[in-house]
């Protein structure tokens, strides 16, 4: 994909070979073919572009932002978009909205990244163990999952944040605690379909321990469906985080969190519409990007469920 043209034919042949000579090559071929499928879908590419822009904005925020995101300038408060120097206008404390949006990308990415490395891992663990072990372990773990599924997510997250206290770390914890059950369900369903296959029996007869079978052989096979679901869920994570921020329970001022920005902009909505509109557009664009990418990934990696 990023290879220079000189070795491209060789790399390409290696990536499309029908007789892979190593597990590494087989895996690379799989990824490459998945990528080809994804690249054919223009909407998925648009989603990928949005996500890449978000990541770049987060990394290079100090270089891209014209102002300090928390520097106040009361002489220049509530300027409309298009004012020279403040492309998207300024907020009630004279802070540049564009700069705040760019730095806010860091918070959004931070929340998404933290939830994504915790909730699916936990869900995967619960689901594969339940599915592989079966019997009472399965019953207990799945009942436990169902209890969390039975709760409305936002309300449960609200109650958690209420107990733990507001703040971005606790918001992440609350979102992670409420978003793992679907992954456990998916992982269990996948595990049940492969548990009795011949290759698992073969490994077991070779003397592999249950731990090794689950981590080394079952989990990798569940990964692709979980990854697809994670991408589809990222928009939901962003929206929940923004909702908590909007309620004043997520990131605290003066952090430029997008939901919290909308919350302050709400006071000026009728006369200075841009203060609340701009961060909302940012949230909308980024969630749309993740949704488009997730749809595309599902079509490319999991053709069964696409229709």
């Amino acid at each position: 994909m990023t290879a220079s043209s000189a070795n491209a034919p060789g790399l390409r042949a290696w990536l499309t070979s029908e007789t892979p000579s190593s597990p590494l090559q087989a895996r690379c071929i799989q990824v490459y073919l998945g990528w080809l499928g994804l690249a054919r879908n223009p909407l998925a590419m648009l989603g990928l572009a949005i996500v890449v822009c978000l990541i770049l904005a987060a990394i290079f925020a100090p270089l891209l932002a014209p102002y300090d995101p928390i520097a106040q300038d009361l002489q220049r408060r509530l300027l409309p978009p298009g004012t020279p120097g403040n492309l998207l206008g300024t907020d009630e404390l004279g802070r540049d909205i564009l700069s705040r949006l760019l730095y806010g990308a860091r918070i959004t990415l931070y929340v998404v990244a933290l939830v994504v490395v915790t909730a699916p891992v936990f869900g995967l663990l619960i689901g594969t163990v339940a599915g592989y072990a079966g019997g009472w372990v399965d019953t207990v773990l799945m009942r436990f999952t169902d209890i969390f599924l039975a709760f409305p997510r936002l309300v449960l997250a609200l109650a958690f944040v209420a107990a733990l206290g507001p703040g971005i770390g606790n918001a992440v914890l609350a979102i992670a605690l409420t978003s793992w059950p679907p992954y456990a369900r998916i992982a269990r369903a996948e595990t049940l379909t492969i548990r009795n296959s011949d290759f698992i029996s073969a490994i077991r007869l070779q003397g592999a321990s249950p731990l090794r079978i689950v981590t080394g052989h079952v989990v990798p096979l569940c990964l692709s469906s979980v990854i697809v679901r994670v991408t589809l869920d990222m928009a939901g994570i962003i929206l929940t985080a923004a909702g908590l921020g909007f309620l004043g329970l997520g990131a605290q001022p003066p952090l430029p969190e997008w939901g919290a920005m909308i919350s302050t902009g709400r006071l000026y909505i009728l006369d200075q519409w841009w203060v609340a509109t701009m961060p909302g557009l940012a949230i909308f664009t980024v969630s749309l990007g993740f949704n488009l990418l997730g749809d595309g990934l599902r079509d490319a990696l999991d053709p069964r469920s696409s229709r």
Partner: protein
Amino acid sequence: MSLAGSRPGGRGGFLSSRQGLLKVGRVLATLAVTLLGLLLITFLIGRVMPIDPVLAVVGDRASNEVYEATRKAMGLDQPIIVQFFTYIGEVVRGDFGTSLLTSRPVIEDIARVFPATLELATVATLLGVSLGIPAGVMAAVHQGRWPDHVVRLVGLFGYSMPIFWLGLMGLLIFYGKLDWVAGPGRLDIFFEDVVPQVTGVILIDSLLAGDFEVFANALSHIILPASVLGYYSLAYISRMTRSFMLEQLAQEYITTARVKGVSEARVIWGHALGNVMVPLITVIALSYASLLEGSVLTEIVFAWPGIGFYITNALLSADMNAVLGGTVVVGIVFVGLNLLSDILYRVFDPRAR
């Protein structure tokens, strides 16, 4: 379809057979475990919170004796498992304690605010169903062509938009700029308490009282928040309708009907949609449940005095009794609606029995 799906002869109805009773028993057991787990979670949340519930009652200048006596009176000196069972007993009796904010029993507060949420979620679901099902059917019938793309895009936007922002934009445009609808709240201030409260649902109460002015005002207040919420239910319902319809339209009985010369409209709206209605009922019940929850943010934006508004305000003033009581009630309603959708599915689809 109906022949293939009918239950084997000789077996009784839904409940009369022994297997049916066993199934009911299993459902009830699951329900009990789920509700118990729900209470365990709220109980633990109430225990891990950094606020000392005794201090909240006696204040931080109380003497040690008063503190200990209050602690004992609140049952906090008991083992944690005893406390949990005491808690269950209280919840079963509908006792969630007293709200610090309103100094009234939490259950009374909830009974007062719940109809507002119910009203909002119901109007939103009606909007979502009446637009979502036709949209989903059109998308399935014209699969891959522009109606399909439009419905998909509308759904995708719905899934990607922060609901509180959409509400604010709605207020800005339709209330601030165009002045087509009334602003936040359930009624204009001079219409409040005009009609006697019977159900707590103003749209119904005003009709019962025959006061159409109040009805019109309430309608003007509810239409924007209900549309915002309904948009989400529309996104979900149209997507599910589309995929169910595609499944049905590929079946052989559809071809048979067409070959027999049944009109296309009847094939689609009669034969196919008729069979789609069963799974759709489940979808609608689930979306109704999620609207009860999704209304938290909408209620804040529109200052709608429902349960989401109540929980959030309690939360911001550290009124834990109210927060946990509200959470339990929302959780129970959620579980109840899930169960209802499951039962409806079993009643309407003989294969699922």
